[in-house]
């Protein structure tokens, strides 16, 4: 047997495009979020509440990723923000190339915040850098307080954790303190917010922090 040494990152192509996306956005002063969660945790609802709160004072653009339908883009379009829907047709995650193509279809002039809502999936999107400034992982209280331990890759890669649907805690067995402890065990640097899109609890704290980040970008 003879050997050829390769030593190359498997996702080098994706990483290179992600680097281009990141450079472009940094140059234009756009703060980019990659929002990930399991399906149904409330990514789109949080985005809607965020647009209600910040839509007047911040120029926001949105890229929606879903396996099928443009339902989410329709929901977001009601807030009069530029939005592009990526339909992955079965693909379980967004890749940097898809985001690059979506960005090319948008007029990002003046945009201060670009939110990329990833496909609902806590495994696959962890590997694919899109060029974001940070990953935000959303999890809902109904998913159980042990979720961070089951999906460590994603919680480790994220900078922010939004615990959503806190209004449902009285009806559940999951415990917020345990959930927080489990998440911080995986990633002690996580910035944690607790929200409810129904009661709007915690939304203004999240939005105030987000706006601060955008101003720094």
């Amino acid at each position, binding site marked *: *047997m*003879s*050997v*050829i*040494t*390769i*030593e*190359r*990152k*498997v*996702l*080098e*192509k*994706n990483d290179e495009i992600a680097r281009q996306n990141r450079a472009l956005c940094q140059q234009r002063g756009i703060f980019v979020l990659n929002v990930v969660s399991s399906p149904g945790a409330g990514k789109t609802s949080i985005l809607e509440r965020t647009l209600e709160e910040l839509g007047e004072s911040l120029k926001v653009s949105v890229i929606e990723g879903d396996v099928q339908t443009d339902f989410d883009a329709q929901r977001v379009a009601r807030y009069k923000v530029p939005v592009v829907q990526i339909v992955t047709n079965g*693909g*379980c*995650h967004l*890749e940097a190339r898809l985001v690059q193509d979506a960005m090319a279809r948008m007029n990002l002039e003046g945009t201060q915040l670009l939110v990329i809502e990833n496909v609902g999936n806590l*495994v*696959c999107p*962890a*590997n*694919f850098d899109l060029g974001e400034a940070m990953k935000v992982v959303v999890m809902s209280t109904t998913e159980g307080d042990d979720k961070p*331990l089951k999906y*460590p*890759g*994603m919680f*480790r890669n994220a900078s922010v954790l939004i615990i959503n649907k806190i209004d449902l805690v009285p009806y559940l067995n999951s415990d917020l303190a345990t959930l927080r402890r489990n998440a*911080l*065990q*995986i*990633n*002690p*640097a996580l910035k944690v917010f607790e929200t409810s899109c129904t009661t709007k609890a915690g939304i203004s704290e999240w939005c105030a922090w987000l706006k601060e980040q955008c101003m720094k970008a």
Partner: protein
Amino acid sequence: MHELAIAQSIFEIVRSVVPAEQAGDVRAVRVRVGRLSGVVADSLEFCFSVIVADTPLRGAGIVIEAVPTVSECKDCFHRFTVEDLAFLCPSCGSANIVLVSGTELQVAEVELLDNPVEVT
């Protein structure tokens, strides 16, 4: 199912490195996979076998080298393997730690059958 996309990337890297006339000699593609990378070994092997099926690389299989999750404490410089996903220094209890390994996803090398010596 992102293993399919990952297997496709591995395939493309191998094709770009190995000269076309030697592609049929490739037997093993050694891939380094970190424990935290979220890649399922069986799935990756299966996806790769599907991708190479009708190509010159059909004789090649994936050999996975699992890389442990290793961290280093920035306060006491203790280096340790992360067990049970507790990202705290077992020596001093600090949370100020950095990951040294565990997220790898790299094509390390390929092994080829030596070309039979031509009889002159």
